[in-house]
């Protein structure tokens, strides 16, 4: 009789251990999935809220305005959230070539808030006569500006 009780106790402990392991795995996996889902929700909503437009006049002088062989662009934040005004968080391509020498200056305030304008000075030494395009990528949104020299 005592051996039956001992067997029951062993089976009980084993089943509880298995159940606890399965329960732990389920909650841990669902917690990870929930975290990912929340992060993705934040990313998607940020992407929807991000919008900007290049407001530079393509008919006026865009290149080498200050003698430093820069392309000078004005970009307006037309979305509903702050955008990073740090050049390291913004990707700029001149004629398809990635450019790191970019200076971003907020011209009508201190931060790139919705409605405010940033001036981009993009180094492009020796740009030749002809058609050119500059692509700006920030916060998951991208804009292309074309001009002719």
């Amino acid at each position: 009789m005592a051996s039956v009780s001992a067997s029951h106790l062993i089976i009980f402990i084993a089943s509880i251990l298995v159940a606890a392991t399965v329960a732990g795995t389920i909650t841990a996996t669902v917690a990870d999935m929930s975290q990912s889902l929340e992060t993705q929700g934040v990313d998607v909503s940020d992407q929807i809220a991000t919008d900007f437009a290049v407001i530079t006049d393509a008919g006026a002088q865009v290149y080498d305005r200050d003698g430093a062989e820069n392309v000078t662009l004005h970009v307006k934040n037309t979305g509903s959230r702050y955008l990073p005004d740090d050049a390291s968080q913004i990707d700029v391509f001149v004629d398809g070539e990635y450019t790191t020498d970019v200076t971003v200056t907020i011209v009508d305030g201190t931060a790139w808030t919705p409605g405010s304008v940033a001036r981009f000075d993009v180094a492009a030494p020796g740009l030749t006569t002809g058609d050119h395009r500059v692509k700006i990528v920030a916060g998951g949104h991208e804009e292309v500006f074309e001009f002719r020299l």
Partner: protein
Amino acid sequence: MGFSVSGSAAIIFAAMFIAFGMFYTATTTSADRVTDATDDWRDRSLDLQNAAITVENVTVESSGGTYAVNATVLNTGGATLAVSRTDFLIDNTYQTAFVDRAVEGDGETDLWVPGERLTANMTVGSAPSRLRVVTDHGVAATEVIA
């Protein structure tokens, strides 16, 4: 034997309950964020479709090496625009200092409602040739100054 099955089932059930609670909270929070952002985007798109401006007149007066530029811009759209969010670029130079800006003579208001004229006076150091006016949502009008 019977009690071990019941105990295990209770533990699994509790875990499923907790997991569903976490998943439900995450799903609703995420969906709410995306829905709010989409609503904002829809509002912005509607305002963008309703926004339109026309540069009616630009006059330039030179005096002692400086040029006073006076621009009159008409709100021809159906959306109310903000004066503070309206940008002026003269020859691609962003204008930050205005002598004055007024909507139908009112220099205090920030509202530029449909059908009203915004006048802006600026001073530049060289003879201007192009003026570009940009309002909310990036709606722009360009005028070549004769």
